[in-house]
């Protein structure tokens, strides 16, 4: 899923300083799972903003809505009738949701309430770690299902580098060396001889480098 983290409250307060009618808009999917932008977090943020406003002697109206997700028009349509009541929206969805909400509501200010971080998994409650950077040409079949693009700090295709120590990356002893993991997995799969295969140069044109990307599926388009 997309993993996000809460933005510091001071930042959000700064965005909203000239606004008096605010909608805090949550999302029921990824940001709910990583406890950054779901219904609960919407309620806490709204309450915090109200208390802050009262302390400052400001009159302010803050409403709370959580949509199923903010990356599909059918759910964003659910607030079409009420959106004009607000002069600002704080969206706690990932960067996709913030932008898509703004696209549907062109003349409403939509501010981000979380920092979107990466595509990752829940290792345990409160710990989410990165697994994928969306390079567009998945090579997991050749690396024992461990991604060198997202998990190697130097995204080496023929790793490890000379800084790998005790299975950890040179940048931080808490970070696994992706190539140690790959070697261990190839061993477990009895495929260690594949280690010596030279990996060809990466085609980054399907990655961020090629520009904003799209996927088109004519077989399902209407």
């Amino acid at each position, binding site marked *: 899923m997309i993993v996000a983290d809460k933005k510091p409250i001071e930042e959000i307060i700064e965005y909203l300083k000239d606004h008096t009618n605010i909608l805090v808009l949550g999302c029921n999917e990824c940001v709910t799972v990583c406890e950054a932008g779901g219904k609960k977090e919407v309620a806490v943020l709204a309450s915090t903003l109200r208390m802050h406003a009262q302390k400052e002697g400001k009159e302010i109206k803050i409403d709370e809505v959580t949509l199923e997700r903010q990356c599909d028009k059918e759910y964003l349509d659910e607030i079409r009738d009420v959106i004009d009541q607000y002069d600002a929206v704080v969206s706690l969805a990932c960067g996709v949701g913030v932008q898509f909400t703004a696209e549907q509501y062109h003349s409403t200010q939509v501010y981000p309430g979380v920092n979107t971080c990466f595509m990752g998994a829940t290792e345990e409650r409160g710990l989410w770690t990165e697994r994928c950077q969306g390079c567009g040409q998945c090579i997991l079949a050749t690396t024992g299902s461990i991604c060198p693009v997202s998990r190697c700090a130097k995204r080496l295709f023929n790793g490890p580098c*000379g800084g790998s120590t005790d299975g950890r990356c040179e940048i931080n002893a808490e970070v696994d060396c992706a190539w140690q993991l790959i070697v261990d997995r190839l061993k477990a799969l009895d495929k260690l001889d594949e280690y010596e295969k030279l990996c060809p140069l990466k085609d980054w044109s399907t990655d961020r480098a090629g520009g904003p990307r799209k996927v088109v599926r004519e077989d399902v388009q209407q």
Partner: protein
Amino acid sequence: MSVKTPSKLEKILSEGHLAVTSECGPPRGSNAEHIIKKAELIKDHVDAINITDNQTSMTRLCSLASCIRLKLMGLEPVLQMVTRDRNRIALQSDILGAASFDIHNILCLSGDHQSFGDCAQGQNVHDIDSIQLIQAVRHMRDEGKFLGGDDLDGKPQMFVGAAANPFADPFEIRVPRLAKKIAAGVEFIQTQCIYNLDKFEEWMKGVRDRGLHEKVYILAGMTPMKSVGMAKYMQKRVPGMDVPDEIIKRLQGVEKDQQAAEGIKICVEAMQRLKEVEGVAGFHVMAIEWEEKVPEIVEAAGLHPRPKVD
């Protein structure tokens, strides 16, 4: 092995001599005097001089310009090139730039992560990795083509090197990794500095068992310890470095003002031992910010004067 380039280093190795290389770190500014001074200190005791490429990610005068300085002094440079900071366009471009100044040696590296240096907030590139860079240089040299497929006007005549670290983990793939670099086209290797001689010899045995020592020239990396403090720092804080406790104990066993001399002694003894190891084709003496000791070390190891080649 016959020579494929005008490289003086390649020539010396092909004639069966033990080669000696060293390295200089460029200055943290545009003052070329530093490079010139360091090169002057060592020039009569080495066959080629590596110039590091923004080592430990500290921004410095670039390796290419420093190598040109050495060429202007009539010396033989080894251009170190990391893949951290340049994409494949810039890498190919700099290779051609070096070749245009008759720089005939290149060392292909990944590079230390930028979080170690002075621009930890910067982007890194890693468009291709060090092994793919080896392939790229060989492709440009031998096929005369760019990676994109077009012909290039003037093939870079480069003797291609890479690094090897027998002391990094996982140990079990350190010989396969050398095999990989050889398959990619590497022609000479400079190892990480060696303190654990037993482990290095174990790696060399694995190398010989696969006949790899006959496919690549291996230069053993040597760095003299200046002090107990340096030895402890290297042991604890440098990734991929193996410093046995005996080294530290030996340095602790002498007076403080004798530690540097003892460090040099340890280095020279190691070189004497490694000269006898089959497959060791020479030494890469790295005495960063201590370049003035290189002549003494090379002489004490019985490697001076250096052979003359045309």
